[in-house]
């Protein structure tokens, strides 16, 4: 965008680089204002966004605040669409993660009107206005709506989330067959997109930093319940999930299940692993 403007601006030799920059900024903001005005006037309806802003690296912006943006509304508009409009037209420094825009990549889990939701999967029309958009709670904010996901990824990796069968099928081109019943059992748990909404909503994870969290336990469920992995591997998996900060921390508040954008029955999977763990340790002697 900056290159476009440079071409349009007439520069003379007397102007210092700062002056040029100021002029460019003014020109740009003037153009943007006109564009926004045009958009808002042509739109049938407009919506208000209240977006959490925070930038520790810029002087004067270290204090968290809320910025309001008025955005032209159209049918089918998602929260992500509105944010993209606000960034492109109002403030290019507005920062948020997004990628696929179709609830597959899991980048844009946000705290929208008091609930963890995916920006791309939430319709603006379904929300109360003004729409309040904040970064995920219980995670450190890097900038604006971007949170530090490292802890979440650490917990995910802690359950060794990869398929690891005891033995490989005979022929090189043979597939790892799974029974339809077994597939059905783990089907919902495979939907996880690592967005971190569940972890953010979980009260226990907020208080216990070592708790694996719903997403990681769901991953553990996906592999522990997979019959193609051998019994030795299952024992190892159960050892991970039944440790002190594993499944037993869950107090069935159902917050994770409520917010999961992929409708994974997380609490159900955690409870199933609790029972699995008991069955595994129960001895009649």
């Amino acid at each position: 965008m900056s290159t476009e403007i440079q071409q349009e601006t007439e520069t003379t030799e007397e102007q210092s680089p700062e002056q040029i920059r100021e002029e460019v900024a003014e020109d740009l903001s003037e153009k943007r204002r006109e564009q926004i005005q045009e958009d808002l006037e042509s739109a049938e309806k407009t919506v208000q966004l209240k977006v959490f802003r925070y930038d520790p690296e810029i002087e004067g912006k270290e204090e968290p605040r809320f910025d309001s943006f008025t955005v032209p509304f159209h049918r089918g508009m998602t929260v992500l669409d509105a944010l993209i409009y606000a960034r492109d037209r109002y403030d290019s420094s507005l920062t948020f993660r997004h990628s696929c825009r179709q609830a597959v990549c899991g980048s844009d889990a946000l705290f929208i009107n008091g609930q963890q939701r995916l920006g791309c999967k939430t319709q603006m029309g379904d929300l109360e206005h003004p729409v309040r958009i904040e970064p995920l709670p219980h995670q450190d904010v890097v900038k604006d709506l971007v949170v530090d996901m490292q802890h979440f990824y650490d917990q995910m990796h802690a359950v060794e989330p990869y398929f690891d069968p005891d033995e490989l099928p005979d022929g090189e081109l043979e597939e790892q067959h799974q029974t339809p019943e077994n597939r059905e059992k783990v089907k919902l748990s495979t939907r996880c997109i690592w967005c971190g909404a569940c972890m953010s909503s979980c009260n226990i994870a907020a208080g216990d930093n070592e708790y694996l969290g719903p997403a990681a336990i769901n991953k553990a469920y996906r592999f522990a319940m997979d019959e193609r992995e051998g019994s030795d591997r299952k024992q190892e998996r159960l050892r991970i999930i039944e440790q002190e900060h594993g499944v037993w921390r869950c107090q069935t508040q159902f917050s994770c299940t409520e917010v999961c954008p992929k409708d994974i029955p997380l609490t159900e999977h955690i409870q199933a692993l609790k029972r699995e763990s008991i069955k595994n340790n129960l001895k009649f002697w």
Partner: protein
Amino acid sequence: MSQSYDRGTVESFGRWLEFKPGMWAWILHKLTGWILVGYLFTHIAVLSTATGVDPAAAAAGNDIYTTTLQSLEELLIVRFLEIGLLTVAVFHILNGIRLLFVDLGLGLDRQDVSFYVSLIMTALITLASLPTFLGGVL
């Protein structure tokens, strides 16, 4: 996860209105549980003052236990406290049954309904108990 800045309303306790049924069930279960623990100790403390034999009362055909309980029942506040205790205990029992089903993996997709059912049943049982308790029948 320590945070060096104020997230404002994001993590404030003022957001309790946004809690979902599962969270309410959890909070009420904890609360009623602690009330029952508190009651248990009070119960033992009060009743331990009513043991032993008072010869005078025994001669009149009354023992200390009965006299203590009768004098307690005469206080209106005690009758209201009894209603409160019943409400707390009934909810704790019903939600405890709900949690048993949750642990068994039964009806987890209907957990909000079962929470509402336990609330409604608690209210009905409390209402039904009102004449008995307010009448102060011992």
